[in-house]
């Protein structure tokens, strides 16, 4: 019998809160973590960013007994999120039947500019991830998924496969990225950043905002998933094979990934598609094409970048978690920043909260390297 995958615990750490519930309530109430900054380090071009208060993280870390000075800010974000999720899951994370998967794009890269007393090897993603498994006393080698902006969805897909194989019973899947001058200067050099609040899918969208977040899901392999519990049904990763930094004009990879997930559900059963929606001209246009081609033009579309910015390694995980809370609440979250339709294909996006009775959603992401990923979550049973 094929093993099914259940999501049994979750956590989101962001400027909007240190747990999933407070994050969901904040977003539903329309609050955003985005603020305008005039500079950071050697970056002297204004940008808008969702940044986590370091003191808040340090205080929360000391409350759960994480020794100060031992971990980098990136590692602290991961630990703060995963410790809470593992506790809520009630699993023994030191078991060799538990796999740790970390999703990040740049990890401890800020140490290149300022080592802050940490050994130089900590910039290696495997070493950073080892800090997390060592904390939990887990004997397995952690897997770091480094697939640019789609990493968080890829990490969940790989964890699902690892659990289905039978080798592991649980997977702790976490994602985070720290926003430093390294990443901000890079996106500024691409002219991809807006100094104002981002406007996903809007006709006047002028670029993305970056953001900081850590998010964790704990997945369990099971023979069946009970009613009113979340099942990670399927997922797929596809490449545009078109350009390393520009989206495909036909939305090829996103279209193919969507079509794979649609083998397991009907469009009319979807509560919504939670899109990438970075608010760059190219990304949102590409997603609208992919959604149209996949026959999902009438399905509600919602994006969270107006609340969190682009949280990179955390995005696929945090946006999946917020989507789960929204479905349970019969809600399609408002796309903050959107006002006037601005893509060739008029996807069903709204600046207001909407009601839904759907019990499934697709999480869609795309990233540099031409990569795209989609996954399908289902709330089992009926209302």
């Amino acid at each position, binding site marked *: 019998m094929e093993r099914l995958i259940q999501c049994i615990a979750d956590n989101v750490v962001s400027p909007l809160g240190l747990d999933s519930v407070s994050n969901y309530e904040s977003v539903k109430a329309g609050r955003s973590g985005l603020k305008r900054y005039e500079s950071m380090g050697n970056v002297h071009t204004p940008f808008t960013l969702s940044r986590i208060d370091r003191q808040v993280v340090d205080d929360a870390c000391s409350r759960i007994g994480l020794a100060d000075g031992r971990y980098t800010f990136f590692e602290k974000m991961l630990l703060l999120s995963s410790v809470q999720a593992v506790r809520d899951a009630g699993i023994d994370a030191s078991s060799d039947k538990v796999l740790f998967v970390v999703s990040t794009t740049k990890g401890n890269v800020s140490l290149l500019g300022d080592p802050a007393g940490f050994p130089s090897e900590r910039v290696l993603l495997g*070493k950073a991830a080892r800090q997390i498994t060592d904390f939990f006393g887990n004997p397995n080698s952690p897997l770091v998924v480094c*697939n640019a902006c789609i990493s968080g969805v890829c990490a969940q897909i*790989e964890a699902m*496969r690892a659990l289905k194989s039978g080798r592991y019973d649980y997977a702790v899947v976490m994602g985070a990225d720290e926003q430093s001058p390294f990443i901000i200067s890079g996106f500024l*050099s691409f002219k991809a950043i807006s100094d104002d609040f981002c406007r996903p899918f809007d006709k006047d969208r002028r670029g993305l905002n970056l953001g900081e977040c850590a998010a964790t899901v704990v997945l369990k392999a099971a023979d069946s998933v009970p009613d009113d519990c979340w099942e990670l049904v399927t997922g797929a990763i596809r490449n545009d094979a078109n350009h390393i930094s520009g989206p495909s004009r036909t939305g090829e990879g996103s279209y193919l990934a969507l079509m794979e997930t649609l083998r397991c559900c009907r469009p009319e059963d979807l509560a919504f598609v939670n899109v990438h929606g970075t608010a760059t001209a190219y990304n949102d246009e590409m997603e609208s094409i992919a959604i149209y081609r996949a026959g999902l033009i009438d399905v509600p579309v919602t994006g969270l970048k107006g609340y969190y910015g682009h949280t990179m390694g955390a995005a696929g995980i945090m946006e999946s978690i917020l989507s789960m809370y929204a479905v349970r609440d019969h809600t399609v979250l408002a796309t903050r920043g959107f006002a006037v339709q601005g893509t060739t294909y008029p996807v069903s996006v709204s600046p207001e909260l909407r009601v839904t009775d759907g019990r499934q959603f697709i999480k869609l992401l795309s990233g540099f390297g*031409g990569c795209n990923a989609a996954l399908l979550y289902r709330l089992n049973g009926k209302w």
Partner: protein
Amino acid sequence: MGQLDYVILESDRAVVSGRVLEHESSGNAMLAELYRAHIADWPKFFKMDTLSKVGFVASELLLKQLSERRCGSEEYISNRAIVLFGTTASLCADKNYQETIQDIDNYYPSPALFVYTLPNIVTGEIAIRNHYRGETSFYVVEGADAAQMAFHLSCAFADDRTESVLAGWVDSTGNDDFKSFFTLIGKDDVEGLEDKIKTILNKTNI
């Protein structure tokens, strides 16, 4: 259960399934020499960072050895996945980029450098070259562990469109320092994959 064809590409060594490729230079110059001698029709090569150059040349040499780039059904080729592993990921590109932002009097960040600070770009470069629209993944691990690689490579076939995986290890610690191997795995190769990968790894300096 046959052995897998492979390419080993290291700073001063290029081996294709046991056959040593001759070259006069080493490091980045060797990559260009191999490109001119064996590939020569993809000028984008010269814009790539070292990690992508290594992955690109190694994948080209392997596909040439297998002489199957234009063979097989279009669907079989199009659905091919690319799954790569490494420990240092984009660290070399990261350090090069950091130099462009470290000093306020010498501050010149460029998209051409920044894009390569994502290690999965090498998977994109190979996908573009070969029109592969399957899965592309880059996994960062603590060290080259045949069991770990074999496990995650076999997981790639859980996607039932995936019939073959261009797989490998690629690390670059400096512009002239790199280690890699590439191989092509079909569904039939999953049985005993750990030993097959171990056999290749034992021939490398990884």
